[in-house]
């Protein structure tokens, strides 16, 4: 045995930080830290069968009718951005979580936490956006609450919405239904929402013509169901982007997924901004995109159905659920030059790099 070579320099390593004693932004960033927070605090505390499904919402039966129930909170800055505002996000985000359960979104609640001093005109514009988005998504806003907090204790306005949807088919849509060999379809180009927000946020001023992809997704899902596609699982891609959505499903389904990077549509402007910032678009947030797991023999037909809708015009068949269960439930990605690598969760949010 050869002895381990020693460096001529003194080795120096930092002491590990065992845990964050306070919540940091990355705990809400959709990456591994957020997953740890959910798994170490929320799931064990509230442990129940519905929560354990680890789906975008809870699915249950009431009086013989299958329903989906979900909630989400919206804290975006700036409040208005190209392609939408906090109001459109608050409606579409929650309606989309219902759609991902295969449920037709019906009713939303809205809780507004408003910071003292918010211009009344701003509030009016946001509420009008919520109304328009609700009409477009086919949901009604049926109950609400308003609180005002001291100046400096909020960021203009925070919105929470909860939603109820009805499931009018017998498909058990969820990670547990994913099967080896399933095709993975992506409903359109990725990264637009995250880059749009980044471009208008203070400190990172760059000009772009990109607009957020914020949109209601139920019409796409409904078309798939109505035309007999046997959907196994759906996941909308929000924080953490496509990579997080794929990893969540791989883990929940306990199956590996293989993706082809060249099949993932990304717009030129988004790619350019990502190159400058040192980001990978596959981790950048979206607000109107989802992945669908369908049987391989229905993939082409499902793709045709998605592409027939303007929201799904760029839909793409991006990968496959591995046919064996021998490997770990990881996501692998075939790079542009043809080599394979692991597509992992990020710790927290992507941070622009030095050079």
């Amino acid at each position, binding site marked *: 045995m050869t002895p381990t070579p020693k460096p001529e320099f003194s080795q120096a390593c930092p002491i590990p930080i065992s845990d964050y004693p306070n919540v940091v932004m990355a705990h809400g960033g959709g990456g591994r830290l957020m997953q740890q927070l959910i798994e170490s605090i929320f799931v064990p505390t509230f442990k129940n069968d519905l929560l354990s499904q680890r789906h975008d919402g809870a699915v249950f039966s009431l009086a013989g009718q299958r329903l989906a129930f979900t909630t989400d909170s919206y804290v975006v800055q700036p409040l208005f951005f190209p392609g939408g505002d906090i109001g459109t996000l608050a409606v579409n985000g929650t309606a989309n979580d219902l759609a991902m359960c295969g449920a037709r979104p019906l009713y939303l609640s809205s809780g507004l936490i408003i910071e003292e001093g918010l211009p009344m005109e701003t509030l009016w514009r946001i509420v009008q956006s919520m109304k328009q988005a609700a009409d477009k998504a086919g949901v009604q806003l049926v109950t609400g609450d308003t609180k005002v907090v001291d100046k400096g204790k909020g960021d203009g306005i925070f919105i929470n919405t909860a939603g109820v949807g009805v499931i009018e088919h017998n498909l058990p849509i969820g990670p547990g239904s994913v099967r080896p060999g399933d095709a993975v379809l992506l409903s359109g180009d990725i990264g637009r929402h995250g880059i749009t927000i980044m471009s208008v946020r203070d400190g990172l001023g760059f000009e772009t013509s990109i607009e957020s992809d914020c949109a209601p997704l139920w019409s796409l899902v409904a078309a798939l169901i109505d035309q007999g596609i046997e959907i196994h699982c759906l996941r909308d891609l929000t924080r953490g982007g496509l990579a997080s959505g794929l990893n969540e499903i791989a883990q929940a389904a306990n199956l590996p997924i293989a993706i082809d990077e060249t099949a993932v549509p990304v717009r030129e402007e988004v790619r350019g901004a990502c190159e400058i910032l040192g980001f990978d678009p596959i981790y950048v947030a979206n607000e109107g995109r989802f992945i669908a797991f369908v049987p391989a023999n229905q993939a082409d037909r499902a793709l045709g159905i998605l592409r027939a809708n303007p929201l799904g015009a760029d839909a793409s068949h991006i990968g496959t659920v591995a046919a064996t269960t021998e490997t770990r439930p990881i996501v692998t990605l075939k790079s542009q030059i043809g080599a394979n690598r692991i597509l992992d969760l990020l710790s927290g949010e992507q941070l622009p790099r030095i*050079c």
Partner: protein
Amino acid sequence: MKFIDEYRDREGAEKCARAIARITTRPWTIMEVCGGQTHAIVKFGIDELLPKEITLVHGPGCPVCVTPLELIDKAIEIASQPGVIFCSFGDMLRVPGSKRDLLAVKSTGGDVRMVYSPLDAVKIAAENPSRQVVFFAVGFETTAPANAMAVYQARQKGIKNFSILVSHVLVPPAIEAVLSSPHNRVQGFLAAGHVCAIMGYTEYYPIAKKYHVPIVVTGFEPIDILRGVYACIQQCEQGRAEVENAYARAVQREGNEPAQKMIREVFRIIPRKWRGIGEIPQSGFGLSEAYEEFDAEKRFGVAGYTAEESSECISGLILQGVKKPGDCTAFGKKCTPEHPLGATMVSNEGACAAYYRYRR
């Protein structure tokens, strides 16, 4: 996208790889110095295309990784002081100091801001005359001109509440440190294209000659890197040891002279401690005497800080190319991006972080 797609073309990459295989007759160990190149190699799987005779080892060229622990502690101390606005590039915020990182300072009320340019920090200082604004000036020669410009502009505009915490390191002394190690096994270098775009490459001539080692200026896209490897292997096979430019679309022999002038105006060359390696003489920049008033270490009285680092991990060996991440027993177990034990796991561009993300 122009200048991107043609350098990520699969056929082009395979063609380069075949050309490399044709000229390779025996084992060679090549070091890419820059963390950006390490990242690209692992992300695109470039090493998988190479013949098995070629080993790529990953050098000490990630500025986040090599910033010493005590400097992070100084940053955290300054950022924790009331009235301070602490500005930094994004990827420094997550790097752990002895006890916590800058994001943790932010979470307990510190005004820590991510900026994309040091000039934004000068602007913040102008807009907040009653606050002290500190910029964390980290990086190799690549970021030095912009950081120097920030200090220069602050003086021109009479902005007194601006200062920088300097942690600038230089590539040529790091290459020499690797080459002069008795355990060195590196037979050729891919020099960092971005650094050479600023500094040119004449300073590598004496190193190539003294250690009889080829040094090839190399870019960052897959085909750029493969071309750099090709040029390097060709020299190795032919027994040559020259400085060669395989990144001519961005790098000129003399570099960017106005940028160098700005560096000379504001900075001087000093010894620097490298995380995971130790002190290397004449290996970094500090503020020159004429600009000392902008030195945050002096302004905030943190100059004397030291921090003891544990010797559990092997990042020192990895930074010198003696070992690879997979050789470490803690890799992916005790040591992860959330809880890094060592320099090479803390940054995205560190070799261990890149392997963790793409190879585990």
